[in-house]
């Protein structure tokens, strides 16, 4: 075990995989100077500018070229800088990367990792703060990863780089400085395997990405009130660990889904709907979802906070479900 930050863990994963496989390379704006958040810092020194490649401000071509390069035997890591800018490359991701293998009847594969940092990051406003993970979960052909800890960031990023499917890899910008233990050795993550952050018999909270930490904060507070919450971190949304969620809710009889994204048509709806479909009768309380209201994200802190799902709100919702 080594202590490192979420961003260091990502850097480590890229370095390890690039050492292991000479066909892995990364491309994006400013990567030679470490990338906009320093996610690639120092990597150009080890791997050179061909494999840690700068790019013009051409999101469509960064994504589209990665598709072609993946079809031609390399494994590109695509850096989109902010998930918001990936909206300049949706055709390339959704119409091309996600569909090529199927549409060409299995003649090709598109092993790309699309890194799209998500989420609110103080006063980044409406065009630099979005969390659109639900979109990509809806698209056949894509894998969607949303790690919440340094260990998962390393393990899942390694898994993503080794995966033959296009993976949308969403790191949360607020988590970059988060410290945590990261296992030594070649720890490669598994898609579709939730983590249990905390066990409890009263209520299941399902969450992912930065919201997991909010959920844990709420769970700690609730424990002191005698409410024992089980917190599941999905880690990936496609596939998502349906079995773990159903098993937990079957035990607790109560479900609260917590995410940062807009609640309406967010991925929380998929989880809530699935549980409602499968555990009708086993539920002791209505399912609840907590997400953002359907408003763009503001610049002013006081307004930005208005869309935030806080630990206080989570705890209040949990109490509600417990009838307190």
């Amino acid at each position, binding site marked *: 075990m080594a202590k490192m930050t979420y961003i260091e863990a990502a850097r480590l994963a890229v370095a390890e995989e690039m050492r292991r496989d000479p066909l892995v*390379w990364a491309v994006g704006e400013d990567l030679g100077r470490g990338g906009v958040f320093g996610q690639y810092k120092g990597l150009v020194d080890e791997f050179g500018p061909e494999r840690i490649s700068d790019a013009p401000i051409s999101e469509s*071509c960064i994504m*589209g070229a990665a598709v072609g390069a993946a079809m*031609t*035997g390399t494994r590109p890591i695509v850096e989109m800088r902010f998930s918001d800018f990936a909206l300049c490359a949706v055709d390339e991701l959704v119409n091309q990367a996600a569909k090529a*293998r199927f*549409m060409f*009847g299995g003649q090709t594969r598109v092993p790309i990792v699309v890194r799209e940092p998500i989420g609110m990051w103080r006063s980044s406003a409406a065009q630099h703060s979005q969390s659109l993970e639900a979109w990509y979960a809806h698209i056949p052909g894509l894998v969607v990863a949303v790690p919440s800890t340094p260990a998962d960031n390393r393990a899942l990023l390694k898994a993503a780089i080794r995966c033959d499917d296009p993976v949308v890899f969403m790191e949360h910008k607020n988590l970059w400085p988060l410290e945590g233990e990261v296992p030594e050795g070649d720890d490669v993550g598994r898609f579709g395997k939730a983590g249990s952050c905390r066990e409890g018999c009263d209520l299941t909270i399902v969450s992912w990405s930065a919201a997991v930490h909010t959920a844990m904060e709420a769970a700690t507070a609730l424990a002191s009130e005698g409410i024992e919450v089980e917190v599941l971190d999905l880690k990936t949304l496609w596939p998502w660990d349906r079995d773990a969620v159903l098993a937990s809710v079957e035990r607790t009889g109560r479900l609260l889904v917590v995410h940062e994204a807009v609640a309406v048509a967010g991925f929380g709806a998929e989880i809530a709907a699935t549980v409602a479909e499968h555990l009708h009768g086993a539920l002791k309380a209505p399912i609840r979802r907590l997400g953002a209201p359907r408003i763009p994200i503001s610049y002013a802190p006081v307004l930005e906070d208005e869309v935030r799902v806080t630990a206080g709100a989570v705890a209040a919702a949990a109490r509600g479900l417990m009838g307190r």
Partner: protein
Amino acid sequence: MTDDPSSYGSNLNMERYRAHYGQMCRIREFEKAAITAAQNKLVLGAIHPSIGQEAVAVGVCGNLRRDDIILSTHRGHGHTMAKGADPLAMMRELFGRAGGYSQGKGGSMHIADFEVGMLGANGVVGANINIAAGAAHAIKLRGEDRVVVCFFGDGAINRGPFLEGLNWAGVFRLPILFVCEDNGFAATTRTHAMTSGGGPAARAEAMGIAADTVDGNDLVAIDEMARDLIDEARQGRPRFLLARTYRLTGHTSADTAPYRSEEEVELRWLNDPITNMRRILEAAGVPGTQLTAMAEAAKSEMKRAYEAAAATDWPSRELAYADVQDIGDPRERAF
């Protein structure tokens, strides 16, 4: 076309051009069969014939190795066949049958044969340009000496990927030849009406990609120019070829093209690239009977492909769930 066919005279590589003539006939007959199949409701999706543009496909692809790569558009039958694909597997794909190149999952607009380096037609105009740049990027990273050819139409130059992909190729000095087939139309619109400035070649030049222009209905001219440009491109000097041609059919097989006059089209038929080539070969001494026989052979080959495709089974339903992705269960339906 060359005004005086005999000008190619005895320097003409007879074998080469006879083969190319045959290839053009095969493409023509394939598409005629496909149009018939569409009329007969055997091909259900839209098809975009390249009738009148065969010389570009054959002239360019004739200079490629099997391990070289091409990317194509919605109008991709000619490119695909010229790169070496099998018309029966193509026809089956258009018919949506088992044994089609993509098991019937793609159809005409996504025709592809990765074995011969044909990395796909594309339903999104211009999208192939970035993908092609990426394929060339991979070739460079891997230190190979393959080359990529990216075909697209005159309409595609108004989409962002045209700029982004050409700039990319220039910045990274990639082994790629861009071939713009200027057939005058973008669907039902005359492209020039929606294009500002000097057109495809001027834009390419401004992006640092040296551009040449060729008569797209003159196979010999295309062949010679493509050879040089592909040589250049293979060295990591991206190049651009503008081929001026004409779409003799409607945009799709269903388009009667009422937006242009019959006279215009009739006039253009006088410049049919296949007839042009035939004239040159005859002038160079190839007997007309031999050429007619080649055209007939192409016709019966495609008739057989049509019939064989029509007699082929549908793909197994299970294939609907195959090749989606490794991770996650594609059958997941909410229930």
